[in-house]
């Protein structure tokens, strides 16, 4: 932990009882801290081990995505979306493509919709697998769970690489469809990965689900109630762990999600354990969706032939498009003035808004719990700061 001297922590009022409890300790966790998942910083005030105040500091990865997008063409913004939440580039592409399609009224061919579901759910699998690995790492299970998670992640990245040419920055979707069709043998490889995935989950769960240390560290820590979650705009697994039944795949039914049979797992308590288990259950549902999508994948075109991708100029107007990203509701709000580049391009970052309740979750807990609470929120700084 770096104790920086130039922190901007507000000075703490000292009242007369302070000499009984001793001084409060102000520490700055981050921006260089092994557990903050990037360059996130929290100014924490501690009373002994207990957190009495926590102020997040953002902006250490503010890369001016929105400003740059105003000077780029609609197509030119697509690779930048890869670098928002850089673990799940494909779902970012999807959200942006959906927003542009809403803006311009573009229809997507059926095969492309299936390809989007397949790649999107694979993205969800690798994101959640990585997340639970990192969460265990934060909890002190150093190495092994993360190694297991990354072993699975690599298998999915291999599929992405075969399909798009890149491991992480896939840049796969276009408004009106997808960039390229499946290479030969890809579907068999995907089937193998999908069928092998539950085995990994079983293994992971048998190691950790009833692990006493895990339960002691996570149960009852960082509780968010349902009402709090809705008011603070939490979305995705964070909201559902608190019992908010709101999955955009069911609510908005974007794409072709209503064709698939899957359940939406919900948490009861809203603590770190629920958020952890919810992701494990969501991965099982994603596997189900993937099996159905791979089974039903039709033949056909992958791009809407009427869409002009280069020199694309939508009519003046605006649109908000959102999808259920692995981290929550990822939305794009686009305003067009009829020119080739967006007049205003706004990303609704799920992880920034999921951090709203960070202080409430941490108050009263020990300093070590901050790390796992933050880990359970699943932040990626590229998206928090943009």
């Amino acid at each position, binding site marked *: 932990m770096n104790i920086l001297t130039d922190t*901007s922590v507000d000075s703490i009022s000292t009242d007369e009882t302070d000499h009984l409890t001793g001084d409060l300790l102000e520490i700055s966790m981050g921006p260089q801290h092994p557990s903050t998942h990037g360059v996130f910083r929290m100014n924490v005030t501690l009373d002994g081990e207990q957190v009495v105040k926590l102020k997040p500091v*953002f*902006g250490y990865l*503010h890369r*001016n995505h*929105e*400003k740059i997008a*105003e000077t780029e063409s609609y197509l030119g913004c697509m690779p930048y979306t890869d670098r928002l939440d850089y673990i799940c580039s494909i779902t970012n592409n999807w959200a942006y493509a959906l927003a542009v399609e*809403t*803006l*311009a*009224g573009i229809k997507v061919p059926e095969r492309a919709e299936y390809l989007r579901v397949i790649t999107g759910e694979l993205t969800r699998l690798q994101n959640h697998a990585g997340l639970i690995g990192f969460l265990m790492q934060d909890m002190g299970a150093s190495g092994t769970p993360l190694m297991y998670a990354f072993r699975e992640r690599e298998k999915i990245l291999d599929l992405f690489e075969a399909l798009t040419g890149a491991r992480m920055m896939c840049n796969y979707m276009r408004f009106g469809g997808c960039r390229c069709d499946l290479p030969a043998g890809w579907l068999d490889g995907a089937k193998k990965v999908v069928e092998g995935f539950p085995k990994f989950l079983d293994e992971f769960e048998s190691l950790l689900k009833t692990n006493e240390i895990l339960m002691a560290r996570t149960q009852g820590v960082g509780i968010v109630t349902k009402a709090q979650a*809705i*008011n*603070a*705009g*939490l*979305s995705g697994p964070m909201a559902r762990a608190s019992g*908010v039944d*709101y999955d955009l795949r069911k*609510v908005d039914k974007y794409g072709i999600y209503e064709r698939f049979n899957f359940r939406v797992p919900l948490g009861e308590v809203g603590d770190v354990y629920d958020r952890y288990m919810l992701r494990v259950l969501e991965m099982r549902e994603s596997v189900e969706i993937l099996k159905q999508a791979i089974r039903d994948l039709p033949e056909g075109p992958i791009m809407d032939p009427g869409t002009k991708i280069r020199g694309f100029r*939508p*009519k*003046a*107007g*605006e*649109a*908000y498009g*959102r999808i259920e990203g692995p981290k929550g*509701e990822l*939305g794009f*709000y686009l*305003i*067009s003035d009829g020119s080739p580049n967006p007049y*205003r391009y*706004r990303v*609704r970052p799920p992880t*920034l*808004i999921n*951090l*709203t*309740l960070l202080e409430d979750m941490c108050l009263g807990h020990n300093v070590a719990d901050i790390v796992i609470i933050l880990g359970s929120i699943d932040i990626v700084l590229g998206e928090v*700061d943009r």
Partner: protein
Amino acid sequence: MNLEEIKSQIEANVPGCRLEIIPNGSPSGQHSLLVDVEHGFTVASFLRDGATPRFDFCSNVTGIDWPVKEVSTKTKVKKIVDGVEKEVDEVVKSQTGGYLEVVYHLYSIEQREGPVVLRMRTEDRAERVHVPSLTPIWRSAEFQEREAYDLFGILFDGHPDLRRLLMWEGFVDHPMRRDYVDPDDYEYEPTAHDDVLKRAQAHRPAQEGGL
């Protein structure tokens, strides 16, 4: 759910508020509701607590900069020229913009409805840039309003903690405004062109010493 219905609901319950439906020209059909700044807070709390459906989820808060822009519209006017009636194009110049805008996207989680797009506009872009903060109603607006303050310079009255979110304390400008000028940190490019070339030429006197 219809925006007209919601408008009449608000008008019946919040006396004196001035509402305007801003039509959206794109196929998305997401029209928006412009609320005056004085009643913005009351309208928002009515939408959360009194309206049907209740909009309990504020998803997205966006700041937008609309600098003053001259729009010339051509209209055909009949005029009598040299005693003969003729159709003449007349160019009417008008100004639009000149304000900052905040847009809220509201959803109802209970009824699964939305989005209702709520807009508020400041009086101008320089001094009178106040809008009411909706953070006391929806906490999800907390960081997003801070971001709009940071990048656009919109002042949210009633925000519990209005500080810069992304840029550092002591930064003076609001970089997402459309007239913001980047700091001039010239960067070498082997094939300088356009703006980069201009910058390189501007830096030329400083380079002469190294030659």
